[in-house]
């Protein structure tokens, strides 16, 4: 035996090993382990698709189940906070299902549309799963659904929008381009979301007019299909000084008492930053006064905030802005564009030099924001530094009429309450103070302490600037915060501020049972 093995070994030219084959049991066990691992990997992947990605896959517009829903189910309604029906589906005599909307041009950008030809868009797309009844149900509901032989359980979607306020804001906009965002700072509930020009979603949803309307809307140079409130990016101008305030006071780079002794002189000559002159000069009445923080916000002093921005530094300014939601799309019921403090790529936290940083600190340079983002800045200050998660949908209502509310939740703690109160106080001075009235006085809600900040965003060239106002009322225990943007409409003081004042006043009146 041994001889034969050795012969075999030498036959193949190998070293004279002892040719005893390994025990098979051992390698069988190793193969069993390998198979076990492979199946573990398969089970893990399966779990990923069926648990982690389940909702996204179920609601993908290309999922045949979603497409089949068009024929087999009536989608739920969309209601406002007072149960006004904004959208409902009806089955026509010929069996086709058509979506019908409350006829209002402000609803197009908000709700989107649901059309056999063009699919779904806006909130109709975002809430499609709940509306056609494939999501928004717990596992227990799903189990029950199996026993009730129903695949789709359409639910109504209830929005925090007050349609009276929405309509009011839309009418105040008139034919001007821009956006209004109103939010309850203490809950994050969106009260109105207007993008102008809008469109009546019935035009797109109706099979008769859909094709023509869609063609017209998509080629209109005013881009009515773009929701300016959540996806439009605009130069903010001076309203961005609120973000610089949060960064400066929050980081400790300044206090409310900080003054810059050179600032009065620089009002005349310009503030020289690396060879570039930051100019101001729109508040000559402060003359020789070295402004403190509150005064600087009251008169919207560019030079003061350029100093603050440089004191904070690029990376810190970007970080503080990120706390408010800058730098990434805001998690929201609708798709949102990411607001930015800088175009990025530079060495100073993205800023390419001190000049860009100084200009960004008062809202020029590469700063771009969505109106929703600016409403959140106001809301965070109004709510003592705590930013609530913004949300349009406040609940869903099932077929039995039971409301399943969406609980308000804090999203970010931006800054401590004392600092929030300092900024709120400065914003109140901006609206109500002797120096502030020429700038933001028209933002005042009659009879109610009001905080606010205007912005007049220079766009270069010869066009009119963007007109901004962000603010809230009442200053203590604010019930509404707004951001108003009017594209190329002129100064914030004369255009956006009075509109914002009306929106806030009307909402407070509505809450007390009045009419706008």
């Amino acid at each position, binding site marked *: 035996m041994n*001889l*034969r093995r*050795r*012969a*075999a*070994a*030498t*036959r*193949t*030219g*190998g*070293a*004279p*090993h*002892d*040719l*005893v*084959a*390994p025990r*098979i049991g*051992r*390698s*069988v*066990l*190793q*193969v*069993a382990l*390998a*198979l*076990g691992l*492979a*199946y573990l*990997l*398969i*089970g893990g*992947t*399966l*779990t990923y*698709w*069926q*648990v982690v*990605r*389940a*909702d*996204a*896959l*179920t609601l*993908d517009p*290309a*999922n*045949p*189940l979603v497409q*089949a829903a068009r024929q087999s189910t009536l989608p739920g309604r969309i209601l406002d906070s007072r149960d006004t029906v904004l959208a409902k589906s009806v089955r026509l005599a010929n069996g086709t299902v058509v979506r019908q909307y409350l006829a209002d041009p402000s609803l197009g950008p908000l709700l989107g549309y649901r059309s056999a030809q063009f699919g779904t868009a806006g909130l109709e797309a975002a809430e499609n799963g709940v509306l056609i009844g*494939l999501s928004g149900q717990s*596992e227990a509901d*799903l*189990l029950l659904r*199996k026993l009730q*032989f129903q*695949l789709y359980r359409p639910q109504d979607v209830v929005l925090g929008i007050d349609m009276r306020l929405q309509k009011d804001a839309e009418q105040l906009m008139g034919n001007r381009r821009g956006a209004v965002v109103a939010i309850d700072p203490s809950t994050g509930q969106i009260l109105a979301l207007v993008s102008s020009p809008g469109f009546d979603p019935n035009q797109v949803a109706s099979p008769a007019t859909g094709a023509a309307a869609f063609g017209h809307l998509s080629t209109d140079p005013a881009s009515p299909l773009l929701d300016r409130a959540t996806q439009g990016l605009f130069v903010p101008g001076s309203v961005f000084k609120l973000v610089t305030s949060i960064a400066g006071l929050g980081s400790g780079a300044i206090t409310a008492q900080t003054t810059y002794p050179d600032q009065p002189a620089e009002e005349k000559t310009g503030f020289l930053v690396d060879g570039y002159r930051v100019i101001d000069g729109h508040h000559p009445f402060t003359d020789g006064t070295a402004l403190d923080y509150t005064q600087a916000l009251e008169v919207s002093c560019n030079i003061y905030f350029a100093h603050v921005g440089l004191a904070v530094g690029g990376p810190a300014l970007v970080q503080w802005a990120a706390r408010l939601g800058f730098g990434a799309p805001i998690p929201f019921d609708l798709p949102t564009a990411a607001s930015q403090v800088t175009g990025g790529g530079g060495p100073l936290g993205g800023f390419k030099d001190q000049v860009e940083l100084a200009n960004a600190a008062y809202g020029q340079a590469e700063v771009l924001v969505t109106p929703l983002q600016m409403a959140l800045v106001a809301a965070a200050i109004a709510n003592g530094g705590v930013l609530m998660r913004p949300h349009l949908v406040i609940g869903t209502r099932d077929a039995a009429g039971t409301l399943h509310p969406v609980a308000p939740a804090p999203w970010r703690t931006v800054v401590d309450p004392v600092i929030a109160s300092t900024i709120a106080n400065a914003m109140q001075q901006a609206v109500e103070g002797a120096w502030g009235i020429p700038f933001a006085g028209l933002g005042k809600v009659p009879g109610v302490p009001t905080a606010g900040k205007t912005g007049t965003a220079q766009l270069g060239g010869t066009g009119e600037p963007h007109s901004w106002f962000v603010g809230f009322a009442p200053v203590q225990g604010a019930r509404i915060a707004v951001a108003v943007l009017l594209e190329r409409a002129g100064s914030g003081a004369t255009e956006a501020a009075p509109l914002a004042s009306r929106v806030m006043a009307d909402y407070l009146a509505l809450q007390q049972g009045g009419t706008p």
Partner: protein
Amino acid sequence: MNAIAPSPARQLGFAVRPRLRRRELALLAIVAGALVLGRASLASTLAGHLALGDLRLLGLYLGGIAAVHVAFVLTGRRSDQILLPTVALLGGISLLVMERLPQGLVVQRFVGHDLGLAQLQVGWLLLSLALLAVLAVVVRSDNWLRLYKYSWAAAGIALLLAVFVFGRDVNGAQLDLCLGPVCGQPSEPLKVILVVFLAGYLAENRELLAGASTRLGPLRLPPLPYLAPMLAMLGIALAVVGFQHDLGSALLYFAVFLFLLYIATARVSYVALGLLLFLAGSAVLYEIYPVVRLRVDIWLNPWSDPQGAGYQTLRALYALGTGGILGTGLGAGLPSVGATPAIPVIQSDFVFAAVAEEMGLLGALAVLACYLVIAERGLRIAATAQDDFRALLAAGLTLVVVVQAAIIVGGNIKLVPLTGITLPFVSYGGSSLVANALVVGLLLALSDRGVEPPPPPRPRRRVFGPGTAEGVA
């Protein structure tokens, strides 16, 4: 010596003293209960109210299972008692899914009757059960496999060549061989033949393969001459399969080859070399064959062409997502596009996606668990086998089922590129069911503690090795 003489029946090799199989019976009872419940669930969903539905096909199937169990009991088999219930559950799930799918997906005319999907499947299931039972009961010796490995290899190659010449195209791959009205996929029986050959050859030569090496200068390589016959056999199989574009089978053969080689030799270097060859081969195939490139590209990004190439992969993923944890329930999911199911070839290649949608993650994991049970039982049979041939045969048979399931399930869930092979015991189709029944029948026979002991080791025959240096030591 015991005074009691063996009974005449014993001497014939047929122990006819009945022996109860309690564990198998208990497990089969649970399986039967689950399947009846499943059938009722399907009927209720379709009817919209609680209903029991048409139990005739399921009854036939359960009757077949019971008959197999009774045959084992009456012949006093001391074989494994877990395998039959596991396979019975998989086959039963297959029947439920086939009953749930549109019956028009597959229609064949048989003695003047048009038979639909579920009726055909129940026929194949019963045929497979019969084959399984016959093998498990009748096979008392393995000599017919052990001694004729080269004959089996020749038969396998002949089978493949026959497809090459007479084969019929299915979805761009040449897969089917028709004998009169009955068409089958030779790649399925071929996998069994391949395992028989590999087990025979490796059992005979494993000492050499494990211990010796070919010396080439300073390098010590595996004893190449002894690998040659296996590589040749495998190469022919892979080449022909490659020409027929049956990538799934090629992958399965290669994986089983590597696993068996490792079991026989415990040499990691073989596996590493094999994987290198596999990667190189895949790269070449990717360049040469558009079909391979397409499969890999879809795997990497099915969303690039959702209505075209990525269609079926995406549809399968949607099915997984819709199913979620609990599933939609039998009969409630799987939306149709027009009259056909949303997922193409749902009855064979994508049957796992169908199970995952309607029975959910829990059902899908249960199906996977069944294959792991088969793996555990089969490899246990291998580890406790009386000699190397039986060990390698049992391991190989187990692997063809379990690895095949992993390849197609992996393809369904976008873990690996999709290849068109069947899910053993669950997919529709006669070839697959029959071949896998063959596998389980042999495993059961191998597990029987009453079978004939293996023959004593025979003097080693000279194989393909070069004999030049013989006698030097």
